[in-house]
């Protein structure tokens, strides 16, 4: 858990005071909308269809139980009793009043939280693996570096007004859970000859023009992280197109000038600043490390008798097989809490659920909670002997749906129910799909499928990298949806392929079901996953079946 120091707290308080003053001047008419809009965006405040939306950063996806309680409090006091966890380790409140925003922000600041770097053309909240510091796969805690990046990028004078927003993600595990190849910069920590460093991937992104990022450096010694990032940002900033927002992202620049030339420019810039003020020494890294207090792990053994006995209950056994992952410490486990109940809006949690999870984290998980980009919550450090009791408590809160990684674990953006940019709704479609795929035996048999929905081409719901991607489009005031197959967000990231003509809203669930029925028939054996079958067979057999009944 990162422990904020006095400086951070003072800084946040000053920012709240400043925003309070800006809101006051806007409400009195001293500032007009054009002047105020960039100021509110800098604090994570958007105007949506029905109300203001406040986006709060959850840096590297880590929350303390007290922070989660503060979010529950804001949901209850200033909103309508719930919040929406997003694919970028943020939470959004949909119903905040401008008049009350400064008070809400002050309450959040007391818990060390804020909306800075969650909107606008700055370096956004750096995201990472929700299993950081818990998974045995990892070589070092990636959050250290996410925090180093946060400190460097927060209000970096040169990068506060970039040509466009800029998103960085980092992982230290072989299995990429942070979707680093679809970020402006992706960083993968790995080891070479005993040294720790980063693979640097640049120019990934979704939206209107999706790209998988290109590796511009296989190995960057960790001490050079900031100088190299600075060189990438400077190269981008110097050449970035500010004339056309559709072309202003780094992905377009890398694509237009080519990976090789872009790399050459970065390396040239880097050579000049490499040994300057941004070089990190061990003392600087250790100072950050000291802020991440490791829990005082109990000495335990794997597979305790309490756990084995509980598996006699098939419902527990099913959940355990689905939502629990191995931990680096013996006798511990990582637990994923599904925010995808059958019929619920993906990623939403009520204030009661947040409070309950905070209490459970205190009781069973060293007071720590994580937010996953798949819009679920994680308790990263749970003693295996406590799993049965935790499961019962989660089940009461509707947080134990055994569907992690399965067809009903849908990523969905807010869509037209909230978003002023949307073409079509996302949430009702997700709800209908979870209802169609409500049978736990059936979804377990279908196995791993990532279905992602966006309500427009901005791709907040990551549809391009869903095994099944669904994109809302509008045709003569009617909602239609394009379907793509074969996308992946992990270390082998690729973009999905368009299946065929867009289908009307009323047909989408049937089409998805026919695609999955086709998979079940066509797979070589139950071990061949959906995505493996799509890669082996191509989209044709699925296309045939999908449109067969029309």
């Amino acid at each position: 858990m990162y422990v904020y120091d006095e400086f951070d707290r003072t800084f946040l308080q000053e920012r709240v005071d400043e925003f309070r003053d800006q809101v006051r001047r806007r409400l009195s008419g001293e500032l007009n909308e054009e002047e105020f809009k960039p100021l509110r965006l800098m604090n994570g405040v958007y105007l949506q269809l029905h109300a203001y939306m406040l986006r709060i950063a959850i840096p590297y996806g880590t929350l303390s139980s007290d922070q989660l309680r503060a979010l529950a409090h804001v949901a209850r006091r200033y909103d309508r009793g719930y919040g929406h966890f997003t694919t970028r380790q943020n939470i959004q409140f949909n119903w905040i009043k401008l008049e009350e925003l400064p008070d809400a922000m002050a309450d959040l600041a007391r818990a060390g939280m804020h909306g800075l770097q969650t909107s606008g053309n700055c370096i956004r909240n750096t995201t990472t693996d929700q299993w950081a510091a818990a998974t045995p796969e990892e070589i070092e805690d990636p959050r250290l570096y996410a925090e180093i990046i946060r400190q460097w990028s927060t209000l970096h004078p040169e990068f506060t007004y970039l040509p466009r927003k800029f998103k960085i993600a980092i992982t230290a595990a072989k299995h990429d859970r942070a979707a680093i190849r679809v970020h402006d910069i992706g960083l993968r920590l790995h080891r070479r000859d005993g040294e720790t460093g980063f693979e640097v991937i640049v120019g990934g992104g979704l939206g209107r023009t999706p790209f998988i990022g290109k590796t511009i450096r296989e190995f960057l010694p960790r001490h050079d992280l900031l100088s190299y990032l600075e060189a990438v940002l400077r190269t981008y900033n110097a050449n970035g197109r500010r004339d056309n927002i559709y072309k202003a992202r780094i992905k377009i620049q890398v694509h237009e000038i080519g990976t090789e030339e872009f790399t050459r420019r970065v390396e040239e810039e880097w050579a000049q600043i490499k040994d300057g003020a941004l070089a990190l020494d061990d003392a600087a890294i250790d100072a950050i490390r000291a802020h991440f207090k490791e829990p005082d792990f109990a000495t335990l053994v794997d597979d305790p008798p309490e756990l084995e006995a509980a598996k006699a209950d098939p419902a527990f056994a099913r959940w355990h097989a689905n939502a629990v992952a191995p931990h680096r410490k013996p006798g511990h486990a990582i637990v994923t809490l599904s925010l995808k109940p059958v019929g619920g809006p993906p990623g939403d949690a009520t204030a009661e659920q947040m409070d309950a999870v905070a209490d459970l984290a205190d009781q069973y998980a060293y007071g720590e909670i994580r937010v996953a980009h798949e819009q679920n919550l994680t308790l990263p450090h749970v003693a295996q002997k406590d799993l049965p009791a935790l499961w019962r408590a989660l089940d009461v809160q509707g947080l134990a749906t055994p569907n992690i990684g399965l067809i009903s674990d849908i990523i969905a953006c807010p869509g037209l129910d909230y978003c002023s940019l949307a073409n079509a709704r996302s949430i009702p479609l997700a709800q209908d799909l979870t209802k169609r795929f409500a049978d736990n035996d059936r979804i377990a048999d279908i196995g791993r499928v990532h279905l992602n929905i966006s309500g427009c081409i901005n791709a907040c719901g990551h549809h391009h990298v869903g095994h099944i991607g669904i994109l809302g489009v509008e045709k003569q005031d009617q909602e239609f949806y394009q379907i793509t197959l074969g996308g992946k967000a992990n270390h082998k990231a690729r973009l999905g392929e368009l299946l065929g003509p867009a289908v009307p809203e009323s047909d989408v669930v049937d089409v998805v079901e026919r695609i999955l029925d086709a998979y079940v028939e066509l797979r070589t054996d139950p071990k061949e996953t959906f995505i493996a079958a799509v890669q082996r067979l191509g989209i044709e057999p699925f296309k045939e079946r999908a449109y067969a009944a029309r």
Partner: protein
Amino acid sequence: MTSPLQQKLKITGPTVITANRLTDGVVVWLKADGGWSAGLADAAVVNTSDDALKLLGVANADENRAVGAYPARVEIAADGTPRPVNLRERIRVGGPTIALPGAA
């Protein structure tokens, strides 16, 4: 305040001006007296581009009360009240089409 784009405003039927209230973002419609209402039924309905432009000018000059004003097509129901014609505007009138979490 009127942008060149808006000056070319073409409307194709009964139209209202809508925006979000500054203080809390609530959806509002411009009334004939220049005030704003949170009910579409109170909205001033215009039928020509000139009138729509004029009304939009009034709205844009009042951005300390309502922001992001734009014209929206409506249809007139049998009882004479305006109704939204597309899904986006129906959602702005009626709120999200889903049950809100915690409300059940």
